[in-house]
């Protein structure tokens, strides 16, 4: 586990910090936040999400509200995806790009109404994103931007039993909330709680946004744990969060996407309106032509684990790329990775090597995602 630059006393804490300590979590510095990395073990927590239900504190993420008639225009400029396609109550995955077509951050855009949108952003980029937004659209007419990041405790309830768990705590009929849609309702006696069918695990699940005071946050956390207990709910930390999203080949800012990686290299252009309408970064991307490197999935075929930052080599031993994220896959029981490689080597089945502490270990390019959940009638994609 890497130590951050801040002493433990200087790290930021969510309202649930006391709960994590009480539950015996191992803590880690994540982007300046003192967060739980695991409680009972990454493998157990990962498998709980794949087969039952897991509970995550993701309150460190940021929340930026856009209000006023100028909201849509501002978001269409900032965000690569097409927010005009959203219905009230619908969310979409997107990203904000720099003028050169590289990533400021990825983001979930939620449309409350024509004049009201919520952007959920990464913890490590909260301040950067807010400053970026203010600098690019702050002067737009009819627009008010608010940073509500500290107002919410955000809980993610993820897994095949997530709906069963949350249904015990709300009268909302969750079966009517489709994938990437959201609603409001009373949860654990709290009125007007945002309930979104979103997540970062590749499983069905919900994210709920409740007031961030410690007593409320603590009470709701334990009520969710109790509701999920008969289904095998486990509290889950950032360790399992990472292995779950990696199996689902979901990007992590600073790894698959960053200020040095373009949209076309990342393979995320299907989440953009590139070629249909303009947004910050679109001009540079259209002018740039095809990328020279692309993100692929790798599966180790010789004994060894590819990890973040390891070099990718050709079979001749030449350095040709690097691993953005790599880890053992608890569900698939293989060692997997995402990596940037030259476009000529992106076909599934292509063999490369990963330099694991000085030694080349063979890997092959595989299609992504590595894991896809079985479709269930209760949660059809929007």
């Amino acid at each position, binding site marked *: 586990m890497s130590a951050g630059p801040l002493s433990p006393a200087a790290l930021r804490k969510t309202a649930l910090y006391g709960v994590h300590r009480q539950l015996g979590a*191992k803590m880690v510095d994540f982007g300046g936040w003192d967060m739980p990395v695991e409680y009972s073990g990454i493998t157990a927590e990962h498998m709980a999400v794949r087969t039952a239900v897991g509970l995550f504190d993701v309150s460190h993420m940021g929340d930026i509200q856009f209000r006023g008639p100028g909201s849509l225009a501002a978001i269409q400029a900032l965000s690569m995806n097409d927010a005009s396609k959203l219905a009230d109550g619908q969310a979409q995955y997107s990203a904000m790009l720099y003028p050169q077509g590289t990533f400021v951050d990825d983001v979930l855009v939620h449309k409350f109404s024509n004049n009201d949108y919520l952007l959920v952003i990464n913890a490590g980029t909260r301040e950067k994103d807010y400053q970026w937004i203010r600098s690019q659209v702050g002067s737009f007419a009819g627009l008010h931007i608010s940073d509500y990041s500290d107002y919410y405790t955000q809980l993610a309830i993820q897994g095949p039993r997530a709906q069963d768990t949350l249904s015990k705590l709300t009268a909302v009929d969750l079966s009517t909330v489709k994938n990437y849609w959201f609603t409001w309702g009373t949860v654990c006696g709290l009125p007007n709680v945002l309930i979104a069918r979103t997540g970062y695990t590749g499983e069905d699940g919900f994210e709920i946004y409740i007031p961030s005071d410690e007593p409320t946050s603590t009470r709701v956390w334990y009520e969710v744990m109790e509701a999920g207990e008969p289904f095998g709910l486990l509290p889950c930390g950032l360790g399992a969060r990472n292995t779950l999203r990696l199996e689902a080949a979901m990007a992590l800012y600073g790894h698959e996407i960053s200020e040095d990686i373009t949209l076309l290299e990342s393979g995320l252009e299907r989440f953009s309106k590139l070629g249909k309408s303009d947004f910050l970064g679109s001009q540079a991307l259209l002018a740039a032509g095809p990328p020279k490197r692309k993100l692929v999935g790798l599966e180790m075929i010789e004994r060894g684990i590819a990890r973040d930052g390891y070099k990718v080599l050709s079979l001749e031993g030449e350095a040709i790329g690097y691993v953005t994220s790599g880890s*053992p896959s608890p569900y698939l029981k293989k060692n997997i990775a995402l990596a940037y490689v030259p476009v000529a080597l992106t076909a599934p089945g292509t063999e490369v090597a990963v330099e694991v502490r000085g030694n080349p270990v063979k890997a092959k390019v595989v299609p992504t995602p590595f894991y896809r959940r079985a479709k269930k009638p209760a949660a059809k994609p929007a």
Partner: protein
Amino acid sequence: MAYPATYRYTKEHEWIEAGGKIGKVGITDYAQNTLGDIVFVDLPKVGSSLEKGKVFGSVESVKAVSDLYSPITGTVTEVNEELATAPEKINTDAHGAWLLKVEIADPKEVDGLLSAADYEKFVKEETH
């Protein structure tokens, strides 16, 4: 956690059980607990030389890689093959799941290592 009194320990959280010329080497319960679920062990071949304080291999958990430092100088006589396919045995029984057997070059090196009581004290200070 009881650390076996007949073992000796290092500040890098390895243990050695020296029974005459041959010693068994492993990692402590504190180490396996810190690492989490162990998924991979990288050990030297039989016949390899070990040098006290130098890295001789690694142990990997889901989240992290941890170097292994040799407690003593010697030659590897046996490697625990079980750990290639069942590395989680280190998590369930760290003081029983030996990694290597080593022919010890200088038994005095073992005497210089931490006793169980000293190691336990060291661990308490690390975790305050």
